[in-house]
């Protein structure tokens, strides 16, 4: 009885997740979990989080960026890092 309830809950959650994904894909034309390859690089999802601080620090392509600098890159601004 308990196992069937668990299976039912898991199935329901999976269905909801799929529905949200399909809806988002239909609306935006871009699957929500995919990286936007057309966006400026580097993108935060491809970087390693090396320190959770204020601001957090990431490593991308061997260079260290802060979260604020990665936001600037994403917004098309020029960012110089060492």
């Amino acid at each position, binding site marked *: 009885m*308990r196992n069937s*309830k*668990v299976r039912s*809950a898991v199935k329901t959650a999976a269905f909801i997740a799929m529905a949200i994904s399909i809806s988002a894909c239909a609306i935006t034309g871009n699957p929500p*979990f*995919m*990286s936007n*390859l057309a966006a400026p690089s580097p993108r*935060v*999802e*491809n*970087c*390693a*989080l*090396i*320190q*959770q*601080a*204020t*601001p*957090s620090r*990431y*490593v*991308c*392509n*061997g260079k*260290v960026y802060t*979260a*604020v600098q*990665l*936001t600037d890159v*994403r917004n098309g601004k020029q960012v110089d890092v060492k």
Partner: protein
Amino acid sequence: MKGRWRILLAALGGLTLLGFARPLRAQNTVTRLWEDTRTHQVFTEPGRHRVPFNFTGGVDANAIEQKVEERTHDQMRAAVAETAAQERYDNSQVNKQITDMQPAWKNYISSFQNKFRIGTLVYLDYAMYTHPGFGPQFSENFNPPGPGNEYFNSFDVSRVYLNTYFTPTDDVLFRFTPEIYRANGNNGSPATNNTKIGRITGVGSNLDGDLNVRLKYGYIQYHGLLDSIAPLKGGNVTFGAQPNPFIPWEEDLFQYRFVTLVPWNYVGLSSSQIGLQFDGPIKSSNGETTLAEYGFGAYDNGSFRSQEQTNTKQVMARGTIYPFGAHWRYDGLGMTGFFNYGYGNTAPDSINLPTPLKASNAHFERIAALLHYSAETWNLAGEFDYGQNAFNLGNLFSGSGPLDAFGTPTGKAVTTPHFGNACSTTKPCYDTVGTFGPQTAVWQALLQNGRERNIGWDAFGHFLIPNTKLTAFGLFQWFRPNDNVANDPLDFMRFVAGLSYQYNEYLRIALDSQNLLFYHKNHGITTMKAAKFNYPSAGSLNGLLLPTVKSDTFIPNLVPRDTHAVFLNLEFAY
């Protein structure tokens, strides 16, 4: 008669003259003279060969008035000009002062902006416990109910930091970070919870689960102590309530602190200590790569949230070596060692009192050895843990535990002679089933006899799914709280597996499964066997008598129930 008429006529004439007379005004009197052109004589009347004589020194009222007016205008103009010149000068002085002030004011503002920063770290969660059980908390402020409460679920706030940093100079930093925590203290007993004021006044307890604010970090850090030595450039010395040299370092390596705790943190070592610490890198000769890192210090034996009581201190040290050099923190292959030694947080006048269960008095020791490899999109780490007296009953039940471990007996008391005791209504005894009393006493003995030896093995890592914002992550921990106990009922395994989504630079979401498994088959031990670990020979707990050692009573059900839960975790970091 004629004389009178003459006199009268003269009077009338005089009166007439007086009536027509007008007072003479100097400015209206015009003196006219005539000059004879042949003889140049001046006459008062016009005549032949006579022309008006222009007296250069003569009084011409209009001309004088005009001249006076012109002179007055000239004087006024001069006065106005002088006033204007003075005003211009004064204004220039004021403007100069203002000009001098503005750069200083602007400099202060721009300097302040460069010297102060503020940020936040927030962990929010939704948890569904399909199988709740007793055990350590999966994360801070997680206190689910125990067995029998299947599908318990909750929204939680497990962390809120407000990070403030002030750097008045380049080499000095002050950090202040308050955090939230849940206040638990109301056990439902009016006699012990509420506050008594005076003889007849009471105030109800408000320790009812409020999220309160406390200090997590408050320290001053000096950067550059060893900058004169090139390989040691970048070292720090820190004083105050600060991140210790190991747990925060491992949390950053793991990258999923917002989901769960790293191994030693899970079994009781806090991430914050109060003390004095040195840390920094060891660079290559050209300064381009880091060959090693170090961190060591002396701290209070009590955690950052407890009152220090001892006259000793604990020490911690961590060293990391990068055999191939590291261009960034954690880069490539690394080997890390951690050592911690300290004493129970007990006052000097009590620490040497004889007691069979020494948990709060005994020394403690923790060691960790890690081998780790990090790339930008994945990492993997393995860890071995060794400890002595580093895991007690409070750590075991930091999430939740049976009431018997917190001062309240469970189950139905026995009031007739049993288990070697002369049980009665005035001296009731614990039963061995339907309760957690004797079990709690056995667990206490296994964990707190002062000879506990902890052994653990762990692994964790993550992997970015290519071309997505999704990362698979996992953690496995196997921990033996006391490997001196054969078939220890408290041996457990923990595993966490999930998928995270990086929405942007500040926001991450994870869906994961977290599980605590007490993996031995359910079993019990006799009181004689438990006595080897200082189970009390004839003791009591929560006012009820425990089965005696001499009776060799079998105490069943020593293996706690497993815990299984599904989490949705959210992290916001700025």
